[in-house]
Structure formats: structure tokens, C-alpha cells
């Protein structure tokens, strides 16, 4: 095994946080090496050091045995390191070819014909099919990612860092990505994959597990099980969440009938969508990001008004009600972006748990807010949801993602006596907290609340949901019961096939 990249005793500190602590690892030529760890374990810091975005405080980076000091990404690129970020940075109005060569030219004249020849050769070598003259904004997300990869290869990358590359892909696109990665491996490239999805991690050659900035270990993937890796990652074993299937009632709590909604550009984000959500069930909502999940949930919650059709809650139309009215009817909403949609960052925990109820007599003494009662309530929430914070006065801005989400749960679960809407409730959270959120959702369901759960984690959806509805371009492609749902079938429906096509 020839070592291509080696990291020796790398450390990086941000103020009081030791983001990387004495991390050492090797990446071989032709290896798919996975970096696994919870949020804040130091994966992103490590890859940013490798790509020259941060300068490590200590330790050495060697490429092909030669020590490197990266002052900027340009140095890293020159040393043969490429990176594909989670969010792509293509120029939307440029063609694929222009996007690949932009910024790579030397001198005044850009020889597009020569560039085209080189890009073609690269694509052929790795079995990539991309229309070089297509405009970037017309490409699917999966294709855009390929462009990013080709761009890195064009710059001469021999070591490719991929930061959570499948977060935005359908299962089928992910499979195609991994097929591409294995061809690139065979060609001798080294790939560093940052991921926390276990099924992807298992496709790597070796895994390096990080926990709290330290390397727990590097192991051959073939020699470990998922559970062992999880245990290494979080430092303890995890109780699997297994939803007891229950006999969902057929009492509809929410009925969406032929809902249509146009966005500002006139695109139909909801296109005649109909859906029924019953008491005491978790209805999963599967779909690729941006197919109307957010709009559907926000329409039910009363944040957006639909243009056509109707939405009923317990048989009464709520199409014209405000979010405040709907919340009072017993609907809780855990929004997609917790800090942007769900919290006031500069407010304390005590202030955030009463957000939306701040006019209620329960929180007032005379015309003024009752600070004592709010603090009391916040303390109760902190205890009930095991929120880690300095106290009820702690500004939410300073909480971790998991604790911030728990503040939202404390507020919204209390409201959700009839219906709970959850949009990506576990996105970006650590495994332990994910587990916690899932259990809370199931507890609500067992109380008879109708739960709508939109998530991009298909395996979680399958584990938790009683039924799964697949949304594609603002329509429901079909609803499949728990027993007959699997990732492949859902994946095809998420790409636009109807229930009949995949049955």
C-alpha cells in the first residue's frame, strides 16, 4: 500500500474548543477512506485543514511523502488535493465546460477547445456522461455534483475530499455516485468521504472515527459492523428505535384536498396535492429536498396560504386561518430550519419557549410578562427535555443544534394536542439526540396525535412511519404502508415514478 496522504499529530483549536486534537491518519492510493463522527467531532475542521482553509496549530501534512504547508486552497490544489463541498458553487448561467475551466486559466487567453478535449478525456476515463454545453442551472443536483468532481479532477486532484456528498441525492443518484467513486479508485485516486450515513460508510475501504476532536481509531471497514462503528462514534451502544406498529385509526385529523400553491416565480410548488393524516399515526413524507415538503407543511401550519383547494383540520376548513389560530386548534410545528424559522436567537430559553403565546394571560401578570412564571416554566422544560444550558436565561444562540431543537420541541409538543408537523426534525443532529427526537415523536403518536414527518433519512422514515407518502414536484406519487416500503422503491418514487410503476 502506497501512502499518498498522511496527517501526523494535527491539532487545531478555536478559542476554548479543541476541534482537532493530535489526529494522525494515512490515506493510501486507490483507497476510499471514510471520516466518521458526530457533529462537532472535528471532521469538517480536519478536511478544512487538508484543503488549506484553516492552518493547523500543530502537526504535519504530507502528500506523497513531502511535507506541505497550505496557506490557502490554491496551495492544496497545487499539491493535488480537491474538494467537493456540500453546497455546490457553480455559476448558474455558465455552461458545464465554462464552470469546469473557470478560474483555471493561465495567462490572458482561455483555450476552450483545448480545455474541451481535456475534459472529454477525463470524462471518458471515468465513465462520466455530462453534456458539456448544458447550462449549469438546468442540471439536476446529481449532475451538478458530477461537474464539481470533474472540476476537481481537471485541476489535477489525486486526493478528493467529498463533504457529505449524498445529502442532496436520491438513493439512485447515490448509487451512481458510488459507482463513479469506485472507478476513480481503480484509477488510483484517493477519496476521503465525510459522512454519517452508515450504509455509505460501509462502502468504504477504511474508516477513521473521530470523537470530540480526537481520533478513536482507523479500521478496515470489512472488519467491523455498523453497531461497532456507532459505538466508536458516540462512545456507547445505542438502543435501536423500533416503532411498535400500531393499528392506526381511520379518523382523519388533517385532510388536504387538491391544494395548489405557486411560488413567486409562478412555479407550482404544490400541484393539486391531496393527503389524509389520521389520528394516532406517523405519516412519513419522503421526497428529495425542494419538491414541496416545506410548502405543504407550512400550508397546513397556516404560514403560507394555498391558492386553490382546501385544508381541513378535524373536518373544519383552516384554509383561511392564521398560524396562530391553527396552533390554538392543537397543531404543533417543528420547522425545517430551527434557527431561522423556529427560534429567536437573541432570546433566552425562557422567552423562546413561550414564543407565539406571549400574549396569553398565562404568562402575564397584569399587562406585563411574568418573568418568574416564565423562568419556572423554562426550568421545567429544561428538566423534562434534558436541555444542556446554563439556565433559563441562557440565550438560545449559544445552544448546540440538539439543545436548540429541544427548546423547539418543548414548545411545539405542548401545543400539538391534535397534530404534529415535523420537517427534518433530526437534520444535523447527533445520533443520541436523533434517538431522543424519534422517541418523542412516537410518544406523541401513542397519545393519539396525528404526526406528519418529513425527512431525508429514508431509513428513519421506514423505521418510524406507519405509512409513507412520497412527494414529487408538489404531488403525492403514492402512499405505501409500512410493511412494503423499502429504500429502492421509495427512491424510484422520489424520482417521479408512481406507485403502480414500482409495485
Amino acid at each position, binding site marked *: 500500500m502506497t501512502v499518498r496522504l498522511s496527517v501526523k499529530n494535527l491539532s487545531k483549536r478555536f478559542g476554548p474548543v479543541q476541534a482537532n486534537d493530535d489526529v494522525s491518519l494515512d490515506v493510501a492510493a486507490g483507497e476510499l477512506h471514510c471520516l466518521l463522527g458526530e457533529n462537532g467531532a472535528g471532521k469538517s475542521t480536519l478536511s478544512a485543514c487538508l484543503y488549506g482553509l484553516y*492552518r493547523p496549530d500543530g502537526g504535519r501534512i504530507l502528500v506523497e511523502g513531502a511535507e506541505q504547508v497550505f496557506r490557502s486552497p490554491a496551495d492544496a490544489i497545487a499539491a493535488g488535493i480537491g474538494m467537493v463541498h456540500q453546497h455546490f458553487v457553480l455559476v448558474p448561467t455558465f455552461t458545464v465546460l465554462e464552470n469546469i475551466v473557470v478560474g483555471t486559466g493561465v495567462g490572458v487567453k482561455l483555450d476552450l477547445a483545448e480545455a474541451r478535449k481535456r475534459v472529454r478525456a477525463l470524462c471518458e476515463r471515468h465513465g462520466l456522461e455530462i453534456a458539456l454545453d448544458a447550462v449549469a442551472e438546468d442540471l439536476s443536483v446529481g449532475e451538478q455534483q458530477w461537474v464539481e468532481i470533474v472540476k476537481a479532477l481537471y485541476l489535477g486532484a489525486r486526493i478528493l475530499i467529498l463533504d457529505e456528498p449524498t445529502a442532496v441525492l436520491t438513493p439512485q443518484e447515490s448509487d451512481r455516485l458510488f459507482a463513479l467513486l469506485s472507478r476513480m479508485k481503480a484509477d488510483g485516486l484517493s477519496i476521503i468521504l465525510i459522512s454519517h450515513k452508515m450504509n455509505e460508510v460501509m462502502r468504504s475501504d477504511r474508516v477513521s472515527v473521530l470523537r470530540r476532536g480526537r481520533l478513536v481509531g482507523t479500521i478496515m471497514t470489512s472488519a467491523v459492523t455498523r453497531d461497532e462503528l456507532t459505538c466508536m462514534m458516540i462512545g456507547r451502544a445505542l438502543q435501536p428505535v423500533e416503532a411498535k406498529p400500531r393499528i392506526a385509526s381511520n379518523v382523519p385529523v388533517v385532510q388536504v384536498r387538491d391544494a395548489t400553491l405557486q411560488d413567486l416565480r409562478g412555479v407550482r410548488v404544490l400541484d393539486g396535492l391531496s393527503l389524509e393524516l389520521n389520528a394516532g399515526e406517523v405519516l412519513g413524507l419522503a421526497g428529495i429536498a425542494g419538491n414541496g415538503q416545506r410548502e405543504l407543511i407550512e400550508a397546513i401550519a397556516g404560514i403560507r396560504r394555498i391558492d386553490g383547494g382546501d385544508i381541513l383540520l378535524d373536518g373544519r376548513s383552516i384554509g383561511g386561518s392564521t398560524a396562530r389560530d391553527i396552533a390554538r386548534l392543537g397543531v404543533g*410545528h417543528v420547522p425545517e430550519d430551527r434557527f431561522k424559522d423556529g427560534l429567536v*436567537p437573541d432570546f433566552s430559553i425562557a422567552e423562546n419557549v413561550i414564543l407565539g403565546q406571549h400574549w396569553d394571560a398565562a404568562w402575564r401578570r397584569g399587562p*406585563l410578562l411574568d418573568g418568574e412564571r416564565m423562568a419556572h416554566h423554562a426550568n421545567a422544560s429544561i428538566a423534562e427535555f434534558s436541555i444542556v444550558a446554563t439556565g433559563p436565561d441562557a440565550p438560545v444562540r449559544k445552544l448546540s443544534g440538539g439543545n436548540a431543537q429541544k427548546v423547539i420541541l418543548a414548545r411545539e409538543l405542548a401545543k400539538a394536542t391534535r397534530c404534529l408537523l415535523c420537517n427534518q426534525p433530526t437534520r444535523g443532529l447527533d445520533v443520541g439526540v436523533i434517538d431522543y427526537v424519534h422517541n418523542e415523536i412516537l410518544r406523541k403518536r401513542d397519545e393519539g396525535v396525528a404526526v406528519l414527518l418529513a425527512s431525508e433519512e429514508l431509513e428513519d422514515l421506514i423505521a418510524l412511519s406507519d405509512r409513507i407518502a412520497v412527494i414529487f414536484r408538489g404531488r403525492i406519487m403514492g402512499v405505501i404502508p409500512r410493511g412494503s416500503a423499502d429504500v429502492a422503491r421509495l427512491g424510484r418514487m422520489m424520482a417521479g415514478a408512481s406507485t403502480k410503476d414500482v409495485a
Partner: protein
Amino acid sequence: MAWAGAIAVAALAAVACCSLLFLAAGADPIAAFAALAKGSFGSARAIADTLVKATPLILTGLATALAFRARLWNIGAEGQVFAGAMFAYWCQSSLGPAPAIVQIPVIVLGAVLGGGLLGGLAGVLKTRFKVDEVIATVMLNYIVIYVLSLLLQQGPWTESGGFFEQTALVPAASKLPILWEKTRLHLGFLLALFVAAILQVIIQRSPLGYEIRAAGSNLRALEFQGVNVSRLVIVVFLLSGAIAGLAGAFEVYGVQYRLKSGTLSGIGYTGIIIAILGQLSPRGVVVAAVLFGALLNGATLMQIKTGVPSALIYAIEAIILMFFLIAWAFSQFRLRRIDHVV
């Protein structure tokens, strides 16, 4: 602690900078500062005059701070001062002869309505027609100021037989009572302090203040909870305008005893500086306004004693603001050199 230190350094730096200005004006800095201090706090009368000068600045500072707390950039205190003065004058002069107990409430009400309506108009323009509030308030300033000019320039309000752009003197019963004998300190100062106290409670402890602060941090989270954000915006503009309107009426009925354009101009814009120096808190606004009142008041004595032109005070105000902002930036962020931009 870092904050107190930064402010101390900023104050020293500002004093040093002003000293250079005094030197450039050919005066001894120590003598100039001494005159400035004596002119503003040297006697009971000087202190009273300082507070008189501070009164409208407290109000425009509060008006601006309230709007800025909600991240609504009301630059319209200037026009709202004029609108408050004009509406109060119109109400009072239409009233005819009446005792002070009637006249003064009418004046206060007129000021609140005039300023509030102009502020509210900017709020409606923003929420109904998506007109940026900075543009709307600045443009409304011009409109109101020129409307007053029109009314005073050989218009219906011009003092009969007068030559200046001003109204006749207001009746004695409409003048704001003097609080402190042999000085010019009038009821308006007390009312301004009262408004500051009320505002402090509203912002910190009422549900409305909760919404205002929430809007300043994350308006979207409020929308997600079904709060009627448009109504909130309009309410904030109404209140902000009403407070600024009081400043105008108090100048007319407490200091000038007639309505004229020149003495009102600048109060609203200075209020923006006051609000920022006061860190958008009512308490801070009062302190900053008294400081600026002292500068304005002491400037005359400084000019007489040392020949430093009193207009230099505006430069000093700007210097204070600049150093304050620098101190604030230093206490909020740690600046460090980096080798490249990520």
C-alpha cells in the same frame, strides 16, 4: 468589563482628538474644555439650560431607539418632529382661548397624533407597498419640512406684518410651565423622562416589547408563530413617530413660543446619533442626550472665552460617535490578522 475599558479608551481618544481641533482653531484645549464644562454645568441656570437642550434629543433618541430595536430603520424622526410641532400648533391655534389645563393636553395630543400619523404612514408604505422604510422616511422628511415652509412663507400661519418665516407668539396659557424658577427648564423635560421610563418597561417587560425585541432578532420566527408582523411594524412606526412628535411640540411651546423652521431642524437626525450612543436603551438614550445637550449649551461660553467657533461642537459630536462605534466594535469582536480570506 471589556466594554467599560473600551469606552474609557474611546473617551480619552475623543478628548485627544478634540484637543487637536481646538489647537487648530488657535485655542488652548484646557481652557476650551473648562469653558465648555462651565457653560454646561457651571451654574444652576447652566444645568437647567443643558437639560432644556437635552429634552428634544431624549425624545428623538427614544423614538429612533424604539424603531431600531425592531430593526426598523426609521430615519424619519426629523420629519416627525416637524409634524408633531405643526399638528400641535394647528390643534392649539384652532382651539381658541382656553385655560392651560385644556391647552397643554391638546398640544401633547396634537404632537402625538401628528408625529404618529407621519410615522404610521411610513409603516403603511412599508407593509402595504413594500417601500423601504429608509427611503420612505427620508422622503417624508423633505415633504413635511417644505410644507411648513409653505405655510410660513406668506402663508396662513405667517405672523401678520412679520418678515421672518415664523408664526406669531403663542398665547401665554399654552406655554409649558417652568419647573424651576428663574431658569428655562420646562415641563417637557419631565415628560421626556416619563416617556423614557415607560418605554423602558414596555420594551423589557411587555408582550409588545417582547415582539419588538423578537422582530429585531428574527422576524421570521415571529411570522412562523402567526404574529401579524405588518401590524407590529405599523404600531412601532406609530409609537416612534408619536414620541418624536412630542420633541417638536415641546420646542415650540417650551422654548421658542412660536413655530419656526430653523430651530427644529437637526433634532431628528441628532436623535439617531443619540440612540446609537445610548445603545438603543432608554436609559442610555437619556445619558447620551444630556451629554449632547451639555455640548450644545457649553459651546456658546466656549466661543466667547476662547474664540473656538461653536459650530465645532458638531465635529465633536461626530468624533464622539466615531470613537464610540470603534469601541463597540472592539468589545464585540476580536480583531486579528488572517493570512487569507476563506
